[in-house]
């Protein structure tokens, strides 16, 4: 392959350089019906799962068909999205915060052909390319992080467990039978690029073994003070070692009982890897939300301390999630989110209804907030 220059001159990097222009302006991309009615919308209605209508005070309507997408997406797939948008939507579309794709049309007549087109497209392996759904009191797309496809610190994969979980929850993506919306999120380590800490159900990758120490290389590959400073529990201290050949080297020592397995040391120091096929796995959290509706936003709580990384379909994880969803569907009142339901019936009842074991790992012992989670009343259920 021959190198093709963009026009950039490596000898004069500042020549014709354009910087700090920011993103393209949003209104270049609005469909005409959006541009005309922005700020004038009166109300909306979900006509069927995945299909919304918004009605403007001008009398205009916009119909939206929402489809799920694997956020990992090839340019071939994006071009197919463009082809659909060109055929039905005058060349416009948008993405949602939860990696869904929204196709918008300005009249009801255009809806059926668009829906049929979307529903008819499948990958060679048989999965839908554009499943319609993700609205209302159901499950929408899982937001997630990179996992094994592109990250250096993950304790689990992302795209794999998400595909497996969405296959199991697929009916609830296309149905609205739940008491309220149910948001599932995945972060492949506790750094949580995906910010899953306020989700109805969170799938979280977690390491369980302290870092290994590559003593011979540690001082060459890392700034030791940075590695020490990165540890939130002060478990790392400087140490001197002697290699088998007698060379004296500077390295670090880890106070293993203090390690919380966050991997921050590894981020600062590549000579402290902690990934492990048996040690790594998944934590399930539940009951968080970000909406201010009825009750304040809530953090998710840890309800399962560890499930193994059982690739390619993580059956222990998907079984657990399915159990929580079914117990919630059965027990919660209309409009009640998972966390609100758990608080109403009591967490002791939550574990019973979801058929989950309670273990000592689920009692908070991390710093001050822990105390506020212990039971400080005689009110509890048998």
């Amino acid at each position, binding site marked *: 392959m021959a190198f093709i220059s963009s026009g950039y001159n490596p000898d004069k990097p500042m020549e014709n350089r354009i910087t700090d222009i920011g993103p393209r302006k949003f209104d270049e991309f609005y469909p005409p019906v959006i541009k005309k009615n*922005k700020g004038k919308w009166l109300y909306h209605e979900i006509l069927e799962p995945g299909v919304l209508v918004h009605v403007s005070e001008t009398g205009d309507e916009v119909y939206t068909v929402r489809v799920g997408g694997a956020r990992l997406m090839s340019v071939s797939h994006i071009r197919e999205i463009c082809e659909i948008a060109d055929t039905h939507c005058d060349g416009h579309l948008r993405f949602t915060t939860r990696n869904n794709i929204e196709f918008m049309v300005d009249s009801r007549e255009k809806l059926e052909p668009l829906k049929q087109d979307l529903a008819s497209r499948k990958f060679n392996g048989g999965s839908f390319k554009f499943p319609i759904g993700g609205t209302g009191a159901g499950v929408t797309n899982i937001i997630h992080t990179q996992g094994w496809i592109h990250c250096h610190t993950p304790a689990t994969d992302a795209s794999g467990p998400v595909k497996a979980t969405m296959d199991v929850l697929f009916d609830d993506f296309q149905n609205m039978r739940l008491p309220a919306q149910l948001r599932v999120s995945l972060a492949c380590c506790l750094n949580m690029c995906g910010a899953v800490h306020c989700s109805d159900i969170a799938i979280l990758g977690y390491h369980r073994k302290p870092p290994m120490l590559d003593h011979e290389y540690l001082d060459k590959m890392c700034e030791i003070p940075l590695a020490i400073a990165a540890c939130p529990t002060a478990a790392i201290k400087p140490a001197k070692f002697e290699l088998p050949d007698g060379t004296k080297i500077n390295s670090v020592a880890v106070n293993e009982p203090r390690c919380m397995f966050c991997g921050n040391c590894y981020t600062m120091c590549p000579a402290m890897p902690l990934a492990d096929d048996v040690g790594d796995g998944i934590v399930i959290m539940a009951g968080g939300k970000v909406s201010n509706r009825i009750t304040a936003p809530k953090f998710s709580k840890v309800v399962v301390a560890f499930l193994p990384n059982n690739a390619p379909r993580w059956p222990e994880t998907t079984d657990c999630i399915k159990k929580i969803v079914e117990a919630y569907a059965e027990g919660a009142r209309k409009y009640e989110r998972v966390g609100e339901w758990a608080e109403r019936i009591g967490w002791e009842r939550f574990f019973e209804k979801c058929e989950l074991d309670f273990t000592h790992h689920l009692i908070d012992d991390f710093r001050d907030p822990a105390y506020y989670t212990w039971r400080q009343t005689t009110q509890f259920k048998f």
Partner: protein
Amino acid sequence: MAKHETPLLDQLESGPWPSFVSDLKQEAESRAKNEKGIEYQIPVDVCEDLLGVLELSFKHGRTHWKHGGIVGVFGYGGGVIGRYCDQPQMFPGVAHFHTMRVNQPAGKFYTTEYLRNICDLWDLRGSGITNMHGSTGDIILLGTTTPQLEEIFFELTHTYNQDLGGSGSNLRTPSDCVGQARCEWACYDTQAICHDLTVEYQDELHRPAFPYKFKFKFDGCPNCCVASIARADISFVGTWRDDIKIDQEAVAAYVGGELPSNGGSHAGRDWGPFDIQKEVIDLCPTECMWLEDGKLMIDNRECTRCMHCINVMPRALRIGDDRGCSMLVGAKAPILDGAQMGSLLVPFIKVEEPYDEIKEVIESIWDYWMEEGKNRERLGELMKRQGFQKLLEMTNIKAVPQHVQEPRHNPYIFWKEDEVEGGFQRDVNEFRKHHQR
């Protein structure tokens, strides 16, 4: 014939949900065929090697990616994340596999023309694999080699009038909800302010000068569809301070069962006839609603704008007209010191161009955090370490009861000298005239 056998990944091709494995294979095949005769600038078999390395991770239960190393484009300290494979001999196509973050347009609306241009660029100079979108909001271009970085940046800026997003210890790419573009609940134009602040703070976005990352997110209403309250150092949540607008005819239509509750979102199950008392009035967290002669009444002064009644009856109830936003600060995911929710700093502020008042608050927060924050300390952690009072002092905001859930549990108040009459300096001998040793 595929370059690598992928028996584990192949099992993720079945099932209804879109299979990323099928998509990666489709891209691998498209590159191998190269029907358009593209002069690929990175290895043709990059997608095959990506499948191969992922299969190996599925087998090993461990990632095969190494740390970044310092790569980027000249003059920027963010927007490019370096990535190298730890088995480059087995998977040479992804030996160097750097990510570029492209700053998405506010609201994530696109024309197909724009997306096709990005696809063409990424086909030629990258792996053809993207994330639409990353967690922060950017378009993620996943996988290219170091020599291509400047070329991609040059083409983005010169041909497509498009800049990179943020990474590292700087302002991260701001993001917003769909807002007034297509939502009746948006209390301000999320796209307008998201774009304005992104452009205003390009220097902070591209050149790391902060203790750690810093995020803005814009939610048009308290439903918080972009989760700003949970993950932004400053979250802007739309709100109003006058009365909810009521259309009593529409209320009657909901009560009469002519309109579906919650915009039709519960249609998958028979929940029985709509009961306004049980479903709206009794669930109101402040008990500020009641029925009077068949009319819905609201004591708006007691309303905390939780959105429940508006969500349930979107055609009967509308947000008020005196609109703006609340600013909450310090939210973050758990690392390092535990998760933090945003704390209310500015109960109400108007959101109007040129946003001077809002920028004043932002810049006073940055001044404080850059002065006092430790390396890798998020704003929320600094607030915990130094106290909410310090933040009020530094932003020159007066304490109000809205700032707390409840007043402090202990009387250990750190009185300052200038708050106590006469100050702290006293004459012990004067004291001893009246109090023997």
